């Protein structure tokens, strides 16, 4: 332990070796900063392309294309008429400009509006008839379609570009009176239900993208759960965009009759490409008295590369109606993909005592832009809504929450609680919140909380000090931030979602 006199005599001269050390250290600092950004450069693992013989509509959009799609699907006249009505409306509409995202004008005439794997005349009747290449594609995506291989308790409808290629567990579900099939099939086999409900929540002229979808929608899932039935398994649709320059326009309709319950999951991926692709979906949910619908999404469309090249433009209209008393609709979404996300899953709370929920995690990295949120419209008495939105932004991305809570005159005792938190992973990204509140009933109570924080250098260091690398630290912190939403997801999906946020999962659930 020498004495202090000696120490004071030491010269504070900096040797060239020390200078080098300093430079080395400075370099290291840069690398650590970069780790944060590197998170955004993780490989998009789902970016492969399936080389399969496809049938296309020629690029462009006009009445002939609408007719072509309808013809391909052998639709009845009423369906074609509805499409044409939508198309004519769409032509008169303009793209919304209030969204907090920027992109060059979309050339709607350069896209294709229909692409389908070539198959026997009527499409596959059973899995044995499905092209093995397609089965392999889904296997590769982690969605095996052979029933024995599927996670027990999850039925899958697999949509490939414009068509549904397989729906599993149909027979088993039919025993309960549950209909789970592709939209095209529903138009043929359950025309009364489709006529009654299609467009009843999102009308064909609701907005620009909904009108476009109504004109050219290709496939999607149809779910009908009859009175008093609790769906015994999770239903899911896996959407895959495969073809180039092709938009995907799926339409999903879920009807839960009195006292019914269903949990529905939706996942999506697309190949990596340099050009942008359009995805404009519509989802409609209807819950009658005492019915419950739980709708979960893990959206992982190709986000584009780190310079913002390519990626999916995701313009989606999702809306549910709690039509009956005591009904409940819950939206849970984990949005990690797409170059642009424009999406506001909403609930119309019409039935007295009905409940609407929206749980969301939106992650934007690199050049991604998301403008997402919800609308809760309270019409009935004692209606309740909860909004929990978590935005995570890194790179030069822009992440906006936009939400509307509207309490109408007759909504006595309506309650809303909204919580919007943003987490920034750097200095060059942006997080924004646009909460709109309209209250026309004085007995109602609306609460809004919002926070914005930066991922803490101290948090990362704390993790580092316990042996955890910076990259893992970031995903642990991000996952912790999003936990409130993840716990609303069904187990299998929670696992998937956490993986998407980059965490090593071993044992973290349960």
């Amino acid at each position, binding site marked *: 332990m020498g004495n202090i006199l000696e120490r004071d005599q030491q010269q504070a001269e900096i040797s060239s070796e020390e200078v080098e050390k300093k430079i080395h*250290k400075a370099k290291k600092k840069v690398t650590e900063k970069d780790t944060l950004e590197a998170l955004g450069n993780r490989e998009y693992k789902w970016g492969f392309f399936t080389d399969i013989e496809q049938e296309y509509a020629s690029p462009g959009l006009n009445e002939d294309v609408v007719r072509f799609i309808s013809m391909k699907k052998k639709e009845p006249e009423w369906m074609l008429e509805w499409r044409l009505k939508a198309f004519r409306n769409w032509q008169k509409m303009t793209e919304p400009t209030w969204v907090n995202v920027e992109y060059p004008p979309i050339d709607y005439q350069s896209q294709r509006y229909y692409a389908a794997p070539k198959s026997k005349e009527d499409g596959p009747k059973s899995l044995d008839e499905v092209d093995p290449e397609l089965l392999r594609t889904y296997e590769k995506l982690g969605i095996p379609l052979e029933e024995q291989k599927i996670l027990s308790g999850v039925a899958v409808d697999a949509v490939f570009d414009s068509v549904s290629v397989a729906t599993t567990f149909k027979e088993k579900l039919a025993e309960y009176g549950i209909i789970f099939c592709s939209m095209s099939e529903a138009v043929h086999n359950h025309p009364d239900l489709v006529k009654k409900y299609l467009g009843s929540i999102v009308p064909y002229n609701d907005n620009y993208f909904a009108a476009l979808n109504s004109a050219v929608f290709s496939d999607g899932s149809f779910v009908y759960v009859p009175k008093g039935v609790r769906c015994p398994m999770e239903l899911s649709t896996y959407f895959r965009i495969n073809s180039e320059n092709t938009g995907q326009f799926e339409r999903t309709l879920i009807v839960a009759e009195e006292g019914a319950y269903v949990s529905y999951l939706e996942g999506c991926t697309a190949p990596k490409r340099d050009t942008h692709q359009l995805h404009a979906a519509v989802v409609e949910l209807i819950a009658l008295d005492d019915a419950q619908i739980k709708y979960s999404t893990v959206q992982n469309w190709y986000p584009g590369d780190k310079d913002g090249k390519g990626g999916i433009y995701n313009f989606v209209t999702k809306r549910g109606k709690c039509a009956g008393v005591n009904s409940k609709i819950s939206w849970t979404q984990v949005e990690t993909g797409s170059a642009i996300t424009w999406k506001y899953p909403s609930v119309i709370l019409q039935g007295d005592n009905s409940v609407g929920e929206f749980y969301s995690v939106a992650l934007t990295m690199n050049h991604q832009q998301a403008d997402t949120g919800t609308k809760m419209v309270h019409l009935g008495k004692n209606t309740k809504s909860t909004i929990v939105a978590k935005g995570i932004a890194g790179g030069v991305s822009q992440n906006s929450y936009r939400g509307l809570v509207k309490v109408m005159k007759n909504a006595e005792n309506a309650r809303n609680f909204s919580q919007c938190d943003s987490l920034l992973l750097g200095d060059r990204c942006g997080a924004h919140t646009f909460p709109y509140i309209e209250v026309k009933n004085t007995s109602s109570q609306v609460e809004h909380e919002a926070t914005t924080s930066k991922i803490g250098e101290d948090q990362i260091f704390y993790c580092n000090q316990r042996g955890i690398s910076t990259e893992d630290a970031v995903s642990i912190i991000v*996952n912790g931030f999003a936990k409130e939403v993840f716990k609303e997801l069904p187990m299998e999906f929670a696992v998937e979602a956490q993986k998407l946020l980059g965490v090593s999962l071993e044992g973290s659930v349960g």
Partner: protein
Amino acid sequence: MLEIKNLHVEVEGTEILKGVNLNIKAGEVHAIMGPNGSGKSTLAQVISGRDVYDVTNGEISYLGKDLLDMEPDERAREGVFMAFQYPVEIPGVTNSYFLKTGLNEIRKHHGLETLDAADFLKFIKEKAKLLDIEPDMLNRSVNEGFSGGEKKRNEILQMAVLEPKLAIMDETDSGLDIDALRIVADGVNRLRNEDRAIIIVTHYQRLLNYIVPDYIHILLNGKIVKSGDKQLAFELEEKGYDQIKADYSSIKTKLEETV
């Protein structure tokens, strides 16, 4: 085990450590005392690799390696542990998941098998019991809503789980009640062995009654101005820092006169 030579450290252009020398062998317990702002936490953080501090001169060797050349997570995996003076909250991440992740990283680094959730739970529950930590604290978010004392105990739990070679405890005793102090001290004493070195940063002699150090150093204005055995703490308690400051400045003046 740890050799610090002429360590100079700056934060945002202000020099905080002004030539620290310290030599610690395996098996030893060293206490570092010193007035507020003298640089104790800075020293602890520089050893653990916090990058807001710039090392402008000097070197630190740890088990024969250049410590300053290692990333903080690398240091942790090589056995450097710091119990934080102000433990950090990580919302939404359970204490046990956090600790399991760290432990498994360290185990992987040493070529050991990772523990699964069940094994880990058994392991950590035993450790928690020894430190009188309620099991439900393991399922709460890391440090979130923990009381001051709980946070400190949690740091020692982490230390017990990660079994470091070099443990630095930065004011772990402040905020602990008398019983907790004894529990924590017992926990630390259990970890004392000939392969492990411990640095205790404290303001109070009281802790050193329980964990008896081999050496005590006094850090003043960025320099170690006095080293001694455990008696030094009593002396300090009695006289305060003023005496030491006075002694030190007179020596310094003499020195400057002779140069």
